[in-house]
């Protein structure tokens, strides 16, 4: 771990100014991903601005829905009564991730910022365009069982590994950030993460020094019928092979509108508007769900070791929709 200057931020403005003023500075919140990557020498900041004490942990109802503080812990967020009652899909997704200890440390803002778990990214002896632009992609023709089947480029086939964000995508969340000029802006979560393209080193569309202050979720009618399904190599404490955040708004047996987001299949949570279209206005039954699953995976481009994700993705979507319709998280 490279030596770094540690400062404890006393207010948002100072924190943002400090990081904005130093290209090699980073915000430190829960540290669950950043400290690990610093030990691995993947992240090498020379300054950490600790924002954990800033008053950004509040979770409160707003006129349009809910505002979740960026520094609220994942665990506290999943267990907040407003979240459990109105956005159980978000609770489910958070609780599917990591472990109790990590959820007590990790913040919501940090969770959005978490980096890929690609083995080549983690090993500084290996080529990786995300870590070291121009060095090549080790996974493209290497071990890529856990890698992307959508939206990858020949520069990078890594996936976004998290769970929480998949639910946020399904729930049309908006990310509120504060920039160097002190101004706040909002980014629809769908536009928060990027596809790798030619610049896989950039995971998201934040400017350097911008600080996530809150995540806002509008009201919706999904609470009664939503489900987060995570398929993994062991029963718990493992990243997903494929995950699905599914949400249905129904009238009787008919689907009014739907959300289908897949995790661990792309460089960002992969929302399938194709699947959502295939569900809207249709009766909620296996045939509809299967059609949606086919639509969702139609554009998949698997790599050598992850062909299974195409079939698994379809099945996971069907199962998640069935569970959602059956009352899932409720």
């Amino acid at each position: 771990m490279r030596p770094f200057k540690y400062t404890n931020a006393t207010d948002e403005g100072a924190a943002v100014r400090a990081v904005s003023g130093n290209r090699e500075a980073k915000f430190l919140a829960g540290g669950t991903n950043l400290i690990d990557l610093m030990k691995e020498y993947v992240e090498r900041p020379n300054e950490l601005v600790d924002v954990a004490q800033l008053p950004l942990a509040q979770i409160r109802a707003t006129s349009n829905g809910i505002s979740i503080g960026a520094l609220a812990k994942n665990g506290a967020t999943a267990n907040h009564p407003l979240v459990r009652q109105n956005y159980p899909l978000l609770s489910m997704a958070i609780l599917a991730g990591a472990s109790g200890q990590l959820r007590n440390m990790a913040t919501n803002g940090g969770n959005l910022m978490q980096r890929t778990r690609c083995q080549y990214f983690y090993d500084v002896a290996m080529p990786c365009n995300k870590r070291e632009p121009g060095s090549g992609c080790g996974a493209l023709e290497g071990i890529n069982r856990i890698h992307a089947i959508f939206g990858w480029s020949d520069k990078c086939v890594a996936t976004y590994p998290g769970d929480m964000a998949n639910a946020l995508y399904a729930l049309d969340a908006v990310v509120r950030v504060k920039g160097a000029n002190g101004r706040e802006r909002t980014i629809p979560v769908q536009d928060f993460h990027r596809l790798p393209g030619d610049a896989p080193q950039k995971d998201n569309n934040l400017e350097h020094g911008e600080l996530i202050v809150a995540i806002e979720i509008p009201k919706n009618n999904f609470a009664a019928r939503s489900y987060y399904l995570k398929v993994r190599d062991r029963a718990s404490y493992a990243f997903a092979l494929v995950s699905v955040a599914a949400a249905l708004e129904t009238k009787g047996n008919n689907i009014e509108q739907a959300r289908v987001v897949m995790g661990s299949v792309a460089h960002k949570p992969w929302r399938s508007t194709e699947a959502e279209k295939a569900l809207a206005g249709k009766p909620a039954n296996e045939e509809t769900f299967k059609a949606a699953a086919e639509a969702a995976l139609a554009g998949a481009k698997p790599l050598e070791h992850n062909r299974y994700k195409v079939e698994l993705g379809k099945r996971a979507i069907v199962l998640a929709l069935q569970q959602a319709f059956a009352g899932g998280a409720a």
Partner: protein
Amino acid sequence: MRDKRREEDSEINEEASPQEISADEEKLLDGLGLHGEARRKFLGQTLGGGLGVFALQLLAKEQALAALNAPPDAVFAQNAGLENAVKVSLKINGAAQTAEVDSRTVLLDLLRERLDLTGTKKGCDQGQCGACTVIVNGNRVLSCLTLAAQCQGKEVTTIEGLANGDTLHPMQAAFIKHDGFQCGYCTPGQICSAVALLQEAKNGDASHVTRNLRAGARNIKLTDEEIRERMSGNICRCGAYPGIVAAIREVQAGRETAHKTWHFATDEEIAAVMNEEGRSDATV
């Protein structure tokens, strides 16, 4: 460095300790030059948890090592300067501590390398095993991914802080009773995790396997399935999971809940299944 509670233990143990000392331990203590008050204090620390011989032997070894002097030609760094020093004040097991640390120091290394609290274990140093679990401000967290600097003003409880003098924490006692460990290396993390977990259940916190998330309720009685999921952040390579689950179940229930999962085959049992074979090598 020693917390108040442990100071009190040494008082409590003053009378108990002599009878637990054997002749060769006497010899050992004499050899260390520990007499009178010093001896009482030493024994107070070591026998405090009723751990007797093990810690005594080992601490005696360390006492002997403390006298180890570096020879004049020992090599030290030319430039040992501490970079990016951060001063941290925190409470550990009830005792106030202040340390000046390298900004890169994680809580785990502060405990193990600086404060001699080696009960907290390093299993992966990457947040992937749970061996380093400690309780900070009431929450279980991983000390390997927590910078010491982030602990300013926090209250940290480690495995060393759970027992109350001679009396083990009920979770510690239950782990022994149900053989919830073998090598013992993940055990402090498991126990810290389990202790905090019971509070989470009291708070009504949900888990990945909790059904009906929307209907929150406090004081959740944890099923085995719930305990397993909630303890999955603590890896035990020896595989003592069933004992761990039994221990937590029993502590939460406050009464005996375990059913025995082993037995010796009896003659009758063997005879009953072997009658069509008419032959048995087993004797019980």
